[in-house]
């Protein structure tokens, strides 16, 4: 059994977007504040702080996670992914991000990191989702600018691209 006293900071070591990182946190520190203020991952947005708005959505050990409903000490030893890991490099956008730009799927951008993390996770699991499934996924996020429709369009476009890619890969494999 490990007891971490409330009045001290404790080491938290984990992988962030594939890179080992470490920091220190009091037990009551939320993963949102820890990731932003101690680690510098400011793409994790702090919205409602009770799990409703979805702006802080990240993945922890492959599970979609509200960072505001997670303690920093709980991610010790975990594999954490945030929006910072989505683009291939600092000067290039990822596929999903590019689609968001093309479809005007963001305006103020506050909710965007959480939505991108949810969609990225979802599109990896689900080959060709339909509109209703994407809308159901988006029900876990609040966006006050777009009305959601452009987000759905962007997601469907990426899903279609992935499906086409898989098809052509399969075609190549059978040619060989």
């Amino acid at each position, binding site marked *: 059994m490990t007891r971490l006293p*409330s*009045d001290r900071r404790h080491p938290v070591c984990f992988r962030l977007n594939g890179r080992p990182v470490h920091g220190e946190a009091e037990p009551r520190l939320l993963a949102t504040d820890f990731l932003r203020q101690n680690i510098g991952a400011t793409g994790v947005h702090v919205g409602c702080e*009770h799990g409703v708005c979805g702006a802080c959505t990240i993945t922890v050990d492959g599970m979609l996670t509200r960072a505001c409903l997670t303690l920093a000490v709980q991610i010790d030893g975990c594999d954490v992914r945030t929006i910072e890991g989505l683009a291939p490099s600092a000067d290039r956008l990822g596929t999903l991000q590019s689609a968001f730009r093309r479809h005007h799927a963001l305006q103020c951008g506050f909710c965007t990191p959480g939505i991108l993390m949810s969609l990225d996770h979802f599109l990896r699991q689900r080959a060709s989702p339909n509109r209703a499934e994407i809308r159901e996924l988006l029900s876990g996020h609040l966006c006050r600018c777009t009305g959601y429709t452009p987000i759905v369009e962007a997601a469907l476009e990426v899903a279609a691209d992935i499906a086409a890619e898989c098809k052509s890969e399969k075609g190549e494999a059978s040619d060989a």
Partner: protein
Amino acid sequence: MKPAPFDYVRAETIDEALATLANEGGEARIIAGGQSLMAMLNMRLAKPKTVVDIMRLKNLDRIEEKAGVVVVGAAVRQASLMGWPALPERLPLIALALPWTGHVQTRSRGTICGSIAHADPSAEMPLALIALGGEVHLRSARSRRRIAARDFFTGMMTTERADDELIEAVSFPVTPGRHCAFREVARRHGDFAIVACAAVATRDGVRLAVGGVADAPVARDWPRLDGSALDDALNAFAYDLDARDDIHATARYRRDLVRLIGRDLVREVCL
């Protein structure tokens, strides 16, 4: 919106978790998926001195069917039960209700037992447990006991669980081939229910359970009813639930929903 200070205990065995509860009683809270407790901590509606994390315990993450019930351990996440291949056949009501529990992003972390421990009056899992006549398996350092769902929920977010007890598992009776129905009205999909209803065919009739209206989910058993007899029974039930006005809906609207959804569901399972 930041939690008050607390000690964090990472239990490695169930005995460690139970010993902490025995020593600290009402000052300690169990955290599993954290989807209810963390919000309570953030809003300082709960200010425990110690938070005991049970997600690293072995054997609590099991889903097992034995002797006509499915036993769901304390660390089983809602998404895991939803993905259990036998779910639609063995527990069709749970298969219908789980997609209404929170969102994809909270079901991936939240546990079944945690939802039952939290006992929100509009939550789906307590409702389903009542509708199916399930049991809550409680364990403390001194004893083990099982409580029927109808005796477990004692009021708004209050249960029969003693301060030193842990919900080790919950069990749902399997209902293969029995008609079940579930429906919920909420402002948006995944929001807290204004009214949620579950119906299960019983040997000689139907059981209707209603959540979101009274302080805890309530079930009622009827023989096969139809026509005005059903309407009268639903009307009496709706009034007995003691609905109240709140910012989401009026008491009258809630009673209307109970009558309307109740009738549809009872007819659906009595077909």
